[in-house]
């Protein structure tokens, strides 16, 4: 303790200075590729589209674009997007957790590398290409349709493509690796002897899972949920390829304003709404997890034991 206290303050200051310098590239990156574009979007969202051939103008500032953005068509799509994102994230967790658990706990270290590659290779493949792959698979004339007709499960062409279900399937497929990876890291880091200890102390598999595995995997679950949910909310490739009219998402509407309608002001207002909504949901996630944490502490049956200070 004293050694730290008496360390020469000069050396420490110089150290802090050099650390600040090292942070410069990331700070510049953030300023130019996040803060500036975000500021521009925010700024444009208060403007208007003055004429057919001009994308935006900030001569007159108002909140009119927000009013315009929040029309019923946008809200319907927005609600559908949120639905797809929440269901998609939940499905990714439900599918991803057993896979990550199997990889981290059951597989031999050598097999883990191979399975990890199997998880990652599709992810490295071009996003559009893999989504088009599903378009081919799900199309009414596709081989899946033929196969299902052949074995008699289906009578008539497969009617899944260009629906919300197709988008749901597509996003789960596209974002699953982003869920598996953080879960795998969290579970792999867990000391497996803790599960033995739990079993030794009277817990069966299921109880040990809830009292040891889940609490220790919680940081991984959190990052997985965020890594999947946030980009999923803004996804527009998957619904563009698989969704058709009945499965469109907000990302497409934003892109439409920027690319087709050339109305950057309205597109910006929509984008800001989307970002606020994501932020809101992330905050809700945070609150929810705090509550789960409290509930788990209750479940541990001794949440109040420490605080009561009865033990000394």
């Amino acid at each position, binding site marked *: 303790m004293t050694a730290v206290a008496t360390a020469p303050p000069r050396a420490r200051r110089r150290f802090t200075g050099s650390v600040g310098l090292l942070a410069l590239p990331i700070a510049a990156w953030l300023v130019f590729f996040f803060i500036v574009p975000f500021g521009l979007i925010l700024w444009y969202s208060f403007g208007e589209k003055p004429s057919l051939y001009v994308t935006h103008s900030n001569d007159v500032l108002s909140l009119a674009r927000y009013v315009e953005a929040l029309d019923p068509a946008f809200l319907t799509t927005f609600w559908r997007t949120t639905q797809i994102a929440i269901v998609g994230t939940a499905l990714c967790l439900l599918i991803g957790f057993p896979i990550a658990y199997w990889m981290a706990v059951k597989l031999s270290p050598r097999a883990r590398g191979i399975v990890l590659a199997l998880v990652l290779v599709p992810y490295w493949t071009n996003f559009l290409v893999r989504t088009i792959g599903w378009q081919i698979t799900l199309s009414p004339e596709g081989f899946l349709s033929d196969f299902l007709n052949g074995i008699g499960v289906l009578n008539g062409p497969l009617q899944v493509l260009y629906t919300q279900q197709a988008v749901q399937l597509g996003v789960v497929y596209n974002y699953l690796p982003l869920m598996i990876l953080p879960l795998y890291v969290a579970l792999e880091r867990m000391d497996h002897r803790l599960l033995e*200890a739990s079993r030794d102390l009277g*817990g069966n598999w299921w109880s040990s899972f809830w009292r040891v595995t889940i609490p220790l995997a919680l940081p991984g679950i959190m990052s997985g949920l965020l890594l999947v949910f946030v980009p999923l909310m803004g996804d527009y490739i998957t619904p563009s390829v698989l969704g058709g009219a009945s499965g469109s998402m907000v990302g497409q509407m934003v892109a439409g304003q920027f690319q087709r309608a050339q109305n950057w002001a309205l597109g910006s207002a929509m984008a800001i709404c989307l970002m606020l909504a994501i932020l809101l949901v992330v905050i809700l996630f945070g609150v929810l997890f705090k509550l789960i944490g409290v509930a788990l502490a209750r479940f541990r*049956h001794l949440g109040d*034991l420490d605080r009561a200070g009865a033990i*000394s």
Partner: protein
Amino acid sequence: MTTHLVDEARAGEVTLRGVSRVYGKNYAVRDLDLHVEAGEFISLLGPSGCGKTTTLRMIGGFEYPDTGSISIAAKPVEALPPYKRPVNTVFQAYALFPHLSVAQNVAYGLRYQKTPKNEVRERVSEALQMVRMGSFAERMPAQLSGGQQQRIALARALVNRPAVLLLDEPMSALDRKLREEMQIELKLLQQQLGTTFVFVTHDQEEAMTMSDRIAVMNQGRLEQIGPPDAVYDAPTSAYVAGFIGQQNFFTGELSGGPGAWSVTIPGGTVVSTREPAGSPVVGGVTEVAVRPEHVTVSATPTGGPNEVRSTLMSVSQLGSALQIVTITPEGLKIMARSPRGIDLPMTPGVDVYCSWPSDAVHIFPTTTATESE
């Protein structure tokens, strides 16, 4: 785990009959018979890979025997999972739950016994006081030292009042001083509680200090079992003789008969009044073992039965004694342990005489003896 209603006197009994565990083609444990009395402190002692940990894990329920039966409190348990056995384990690296406080760690098992909340609090407090960690209830495991973590692991296991406590090399991560303190403390605790302790260690001193009986294991088999002094004074094999304490080993041809055996070694003869272990063959090659503390080193010949002239190589201080190493003209090294202050020229290279009483000589059939230390 659950408090079984069994005959009190037999609650802590553990019996293994013909237990084997095979990994691939190798026997980790082979045809093991072991009976542990209720309230006994027994050590499974042996080098790494001798099967002692596998044996412990089979008693705990983390591994299942391929053949044989295991019973605890006179009830067969070999098919039961760990959480249905009346045993608890102190793991080698303690395996404390990092997300739970010390109190929550200790209380972990009580939940499964459906202990009422007030009683949980009492018993946790009691268990922490027992290991002298009462003021650490609110800490997290990461905030504790290795020795403190070990005490918590002990409290977490004992709070459940198991019939048998299994300890898997719990001291191996502690420094020597702390380890010696913990050995005494653990022994006192065991005597006070009367719980059966099955203790796995590779440290023979540790086993000697604490155990009522020591089971020496080698290559998956039980070599010898008995009280520490019996295992030390009357080893039944060269392996046990070499593993427990230090030995001088010589190899030579056996002659003589009951009461007066002798073994011809290079440059002399070793005589013994003890019966050889196993089935001795006169004329066959045998191993002779003499403990360093039985060897007397003197500057002049004493005319005793087992006397070898040799050259002093080194003298080192052990604190309470001296360790003397000499070498005979034939190249045999002899190690001796003498009290300090003996009358001896301490310069390496001088001639000395090593001798030992003939009742301190053990004769074994030839095996590949492994010397400890």
